[in-house]
């Protein structure tokens, strides 16, 4: 065939190698220091509600990094579901990011354990008799059901099940992929493809449950069936952005320079673009229905986020920064094919995704069922961002360690290497 690259790995360096230990130690140190500092600052600046402030900041960042991991897991699953060829070379990075979901469960414990011992600083539904207090009237059947659903024990069980399923999926795809590096057996690809469809269904269900549990139940009387879709859209967008960012940074450090082509980056850019539009679409759908129906039991959630002067600014920044700016910036082909631009774009999109979680979670702090507390920005959230970010990077380099950062003997490797966005 004509000008065809052989299905051969030609980059000189394809692993993190010894650098992984260095990254692990530095990032781990930054991570622990960041979290400790976040807690200290919470004690200093929010002495009355230090644990609450810390928990909220922690939850924002936990959701941020977990959704990156879930987005990567989705990427791997949908890659096999579609029998995709173009994404083979970036799939290993996605697999490693998806594997991070296993240690993320340990980082979930600071949220889960206080809940199990009866702390209600984060989730107000964890205090007895909350339904009656929040409803302010005779309970409807729906509210009784919510009261039964939102209990710490059931919440814990659901979380464990979700994490178990995701961990299983990540382990399965990562394990099969690593085995294929050795054997080159195309049957492993078939097996992953066969499993991708049922796993995708399970993944969707667990994502819905966890988005309800982690974020929507912060405002337990509010409900929106569109909410998990928004959560999902943000997760996939940030997953694609993280994969592209990791790939670009690895290439900057001289790794996998030949395998991950500019067409891969271009395609990841297209994926990000599509999920930016999708995010805007579903966020607007959620807003539109609530705005139009105008039921007080739904509107209060948006009312506070748009009428409160501080949160209104965040809302506008989110609308412009998460939708309009990236829409226009990722539209031109030349920009999506520029590695330098894409590093900036992915970092920007990840920050916007962080702001999305911040916008969903933080207004609930100090909400007592009727009134919200005023907007307060705190360094605690920033420090948790740095702290959990450090731990996330450490986890990534621990999983990557000496493993190849690109599938070595995938049957579609040649297709990916020769792929071109005409």
């Amino acid at each position, binding site marked *: *065939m*004509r000008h065809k690259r052989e299905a051969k790995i030609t980059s000189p360096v394809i692993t993190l190698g010894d650098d992984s230990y260095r990254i692990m130690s530095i990032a781990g140190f930054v991570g622990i220091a960041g979290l400790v500092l976040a807690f200290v600052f919470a004690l200093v600046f929010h002495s009355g509600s230090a644990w609450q402030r810390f928990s909220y900041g922690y939850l924002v960042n936990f959701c941020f990094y977990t959704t990156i991991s879930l987005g990567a897991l989705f990427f791997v699953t949908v890659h096999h579901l579609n029998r995709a060829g173009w994404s083979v070379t970036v799939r290993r990075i996605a697999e490693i990011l998806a594997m991070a979901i296993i240690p993320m469960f340990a980082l979930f414990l600071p949220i889960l354990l206080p809940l199990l011992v009866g702390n209600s600083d984060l989730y107000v539904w964890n205090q007895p008799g909350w339904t009656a207090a929040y409803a302010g009237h005779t309970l409807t059947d729906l509210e009784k059901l919510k009261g039964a659903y939102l209990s710490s024990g059931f919440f814990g069980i659901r979380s464990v099940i979700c994490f178990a399923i995701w961990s299983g999926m990540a382990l399965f795809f990562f394990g099969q992929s690593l085995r294929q590096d050795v054997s080159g057996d195309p049957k492993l690809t078939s097996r992953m493809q066969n499993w991708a469809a049922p796993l995708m269904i399970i993944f969707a269900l667990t994502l819905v449950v966890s988005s309800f549990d982690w974020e929507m139940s912060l405002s337990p009387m509010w409900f929106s069936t569109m909410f998990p879709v928004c959560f999902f859209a943000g997760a996939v967008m940030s997953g694609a952005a993280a994969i592209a960012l990791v790939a670009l940074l690895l290439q900057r450090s001289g790794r996998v320079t030949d395998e991950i082509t500019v067409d891969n980056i271009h395609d990841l850019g297209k994926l990000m673009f599509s999920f930016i539009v999708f995010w805007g679409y579903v966020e607007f759908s959620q807003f*539109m229905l609530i705005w*139009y129906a105008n039921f007080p039991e739904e509107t209060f959630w948006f009312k506070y986020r748009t009428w409160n002067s501080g949160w209104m600014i965040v809302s506008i920044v989110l609308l412009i920064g998460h939708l309009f700016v990236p829409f226009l910036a990722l539209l031109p082909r030349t920009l999506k094919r520029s590695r330098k631009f894409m590093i900036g774009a992915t970092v920007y999109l990840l920050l916007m995704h962080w702001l999305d979680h911040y916008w969903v979670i933080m207004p609930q702090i100090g909400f007592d069922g009727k009134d919200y507390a005023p907007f307060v920005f705190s360094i605690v959230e920033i420090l948790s961002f740095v702290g959990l970010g450090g731990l996330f990077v450490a986890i990534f380099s621990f999983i990557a360690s000496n493993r190849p950062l690109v599938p070595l003997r995938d049957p579609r490797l040649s297709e990916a290497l020769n792929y*071109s966005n005409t």
Partner: protein
Amino acid sequence: MVSTHAHPDHAKAHSAPRPDSELIGLLAEFEDQDALLDACEHARSSGYKKFDAYSPFPVHGIDQAMGIRRTMLPFFVLAIALGAVVLGVGMQWYANRAVFSPLFPGFDFIISGKPLWSLPANIPVAFEVIVLSSCFATFLGMWYLNRLPRLANPLFRIERFKRASDDRFFLMIEKSDPQFDADQTQEQMRGWGAAAVEAVRLDLTDHQIPLGLRRIGLITGLLLLLPPALIYRAQHATNPEPRLHFMPDMDWQYRFGAQNVGPMWYNDRVPQFFFADKSVMRLPVEGTVPRGGLETDIELFRGIKAGSKIPDPSTAPPLPTTPPADEQEAAALALAQAALEPEWVTTFPAALTVDQAMVERGRDRFNIYCVVCHGYAGEGDGLVNERALELAINSPIQKGATTNATWTKAKSFHDPEVAKQPIGRIFDTITNGRSTMGPYGSQISTRDRWAIVLYVKSLQKAWIDPPKPTIPAANVPPGASDARPSNVSPTEGKSDEKTDPPLLDTKGN
């Protein structure tokens, strides 16, 4: 097989050109896409500009190989899409009457308590307009850039080219290319690995649309005439059949009638009630007044002098129900009726500005609501009145002389009794009705009713009692007895020429 018979044909074709066809290019056939890609690169590097490649499927990299610049279609679509934003939002802005337009009054409906102009409600429509116009822009722009539609292509007359949609790859270099030279180009093409090279000729003899196509066009055109013909027939014919109901549950919906009391019969079985008291709408809360309904200005809203005593019909002695037998009784009845009359205003309420515009408005409303009975000049000779009288007089009951006619004649405003009525009383008549005349209070706004009163007064003032004809009516030339108010047009005045039978002469009643 293909390549064997190609050579002689081609050689003959361009050594002895037939006058009825013209060489327009050379077509080279390749066996796989890579050969085609290579050939494209060769053609480009040999300096050819006017050539095209044909393949059964999209070939990756062919654009670069052919040196095709990136299309400007995306920018075209982007421009159209941005225009669609303006169109979609502007359309709704205009339709919601956010802007005054003399051409289109707009729908200023408040829907679900939202402002007339509200951006979130407009986004879905704007989005759909963007999607639709972008699709059209992409599709039609692609056609335009590819110079489509094209009804015929000389390539389709080449037998081997049929495989271009199956398993062969083709490259055509056009004769209009400055580098083109039939022999040299053919050699080059063979050098690039062409399995066969063939001349492409434009047939100059046959520029007519094929007969089959013309027939199809004719039949299609005739068939297209069918729907309008059927519609025309349906419009000009009667059909005794009941109309078709495609969706009976939409035509006969199970629903509560507004302002009803009583059940909705769902499936004709279960009576459904909306509120516990079986009514469908709630009455206004006691002691509340609707916005704008606090009508405290008694002069303006009832035509009664402010501060005067309003007689209460419930405490007054009942009026006799039988018609008065003699003059004494009639006088007593008139007195009793007069006692029930409140003190009507004789001047226009202070809240109104009496000016020419109000007279014009009054004429406008009068000609809509009043003229059908009272006539244009207020003589009580409107068409409805005339027809009703005719029907009443000619009715069998009337001929049998058992009852009176069931129609009370419309009053002439120029009747001396009517002419001296205070304006408050006229206003009350319009508002609440009298005798056969129904109440108009719910249909005509307060200020318009006063405007009608003003117009009635101006009609009365302009009235000159026409002289009684002294010659037989039939001999009166048209217009001779016209002594109509100046603001009544001649044609309107002619409607009551005094040539009709006496029963239609309602004047002087």
